C-alpha cells in the first residue's frame, strides 16, 4: 500500500490547528450579535460549509473537463472525491441553515429561492453518486461522471446568485439584501475577521479531505482492477 506522503501529514496538522483556532475565534472572540444572540455564530461555519460545497462541485466540473480531454482516470478519481466532499458540506450548510432559520424566520424551512436551489443542487449531486455506483465499467462510469459533473455545475451559480436575483428572505453577506430579507446584519471588524478566517480554514479542510479521499479512490481503483483481472 502507498505510504502516506509527509506533506499530507503536515497538512493534517495544519488543518487541525486552523480548525481549533477557528473554533476558538467563533466561540470566544466573535461578539454575540445584538438581536439574534448566539445562533448568529452558526453563520460562520454555515457559510464556510456552503463555500466548500460549491468549491467541491467546481473542482469536480474542472476534473471532468480534464478527464474528457486527457482520458486519465486519476481525474475521475479526483472528481468523485470532490463531489463527495462537496455533498457532505452542502448537507451541513443546509441543515445548519435550517437550525438558524427556526428562531430567526420562525420556521425550519421555506421554499425560498436560495433554499430551493440549494436543495436541487444537493439532489443533483446525490444522484451523481447513486448513478455512478450502478455502473460497472470503469471507463464508462468515468465518462458519465465527467459529463454529469460539468452539466450539474450549472446548478451552482444558480444557487449562489438566487439570493441576489430573486425575491428572497435569505440574507446575503456580500452585497445588498433584498427588501424582504430577514436575519441580515452588518458585520463588525471582529465578525469579518472570524468570517474570513473560517472561509480560509474550511478551504484548507477541503484540500486536506480531497487529498485523503483521492488517495482512497486510487486504492479503490487498484482493488477494482485486480478484481476485474480475476473475473476476466
Amino acid at each position: 500500500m502507498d505510504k502516506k506522503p509527509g506533506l499530507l501529514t503536515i497538512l493534517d496538522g495544519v488543518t487541525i490547528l486552523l480548525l481549533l483556532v477557528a473554533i476558538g475565534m467563533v466561540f470566544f472572540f466573535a461578539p454575540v450579535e445584538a438581536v439574534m444572540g448566539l445562533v448568529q455564530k452558526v453563520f460562520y461555519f454555515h457559510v464556510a460549509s456552503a463555500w466548500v460545497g460549491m468549491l467541491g462541485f467546481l473542482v469536480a466540473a474542472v476534473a471532468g473537463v480534464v478527464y474528457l480531454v486527457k482520458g486519465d482516470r486519476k481525474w475521475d478519481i479526483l472528481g468523485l472525491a470532490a463531489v463527495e466532499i462537496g455533498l457532505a458540506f452542502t448537507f451541513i450548510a443546509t441543515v445548519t441553515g435550517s437550525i438558524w432559520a427556526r428562531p430567526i424566520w420562525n420556521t425550519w424551512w421555506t421554499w425560498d429561492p436560495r433554499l430551493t436551489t440549494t436543495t436541487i443542487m444537493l439532489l443533483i449531486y446525490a444522484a451523481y453518486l447513486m448513478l455512478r455506483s450502478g455502473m460497472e465499467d470503469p471507463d464508462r462510469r468515468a465518462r458519465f461522471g465527467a459529463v454529469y459533473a460539468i452539466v450539474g455545475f450549472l446548478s451552482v451559480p444558480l444557487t449562489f446568485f438566487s439570493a441576489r436575483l430573486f425575491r428572497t428572505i435569505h440574507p446575503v453577506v456580500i452585497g445588498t439584501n433584498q427588501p424582504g430579507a430577514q436575519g441580515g446584519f452588518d458585520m463588525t471588524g471582529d465578525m469579518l475577521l472570524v468570517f474570513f478566517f473560517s472561509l480560509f480554514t474550511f478551504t484548507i479542510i477541503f484540500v486536506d479531505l480531497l487529498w485523503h479521499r483521492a488517495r482512497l479512490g486510487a486504492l479503490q481503483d487498484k482493488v477494482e482492477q485486480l478484481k476485474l483481472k480475476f473475473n476476466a
Partner: protein
Amino acid sequence: MFYLLQEGPAQTTSYFIAGYAVIFGVMALYLVSLIVRRRNLTQDLETLQELEKSQS
C-alpha cells in the same frame, strides 16, 4: 423608542449548540467513513495480492 424595551439578544443558545453539533457530527461521520473504507480496501487489496501471488 422600541430599542429601550429590548432586553438584549434573543436566547438562542440551544440552536447554537444544535448547529455546531451538526457541523462537528457530520464532519466526524465523514472522517470515520474514510477511515473504515480505507481499512476495508486495504484488507481487500492484501487478499487479492495474496491470491495473485498464489496463482502465479
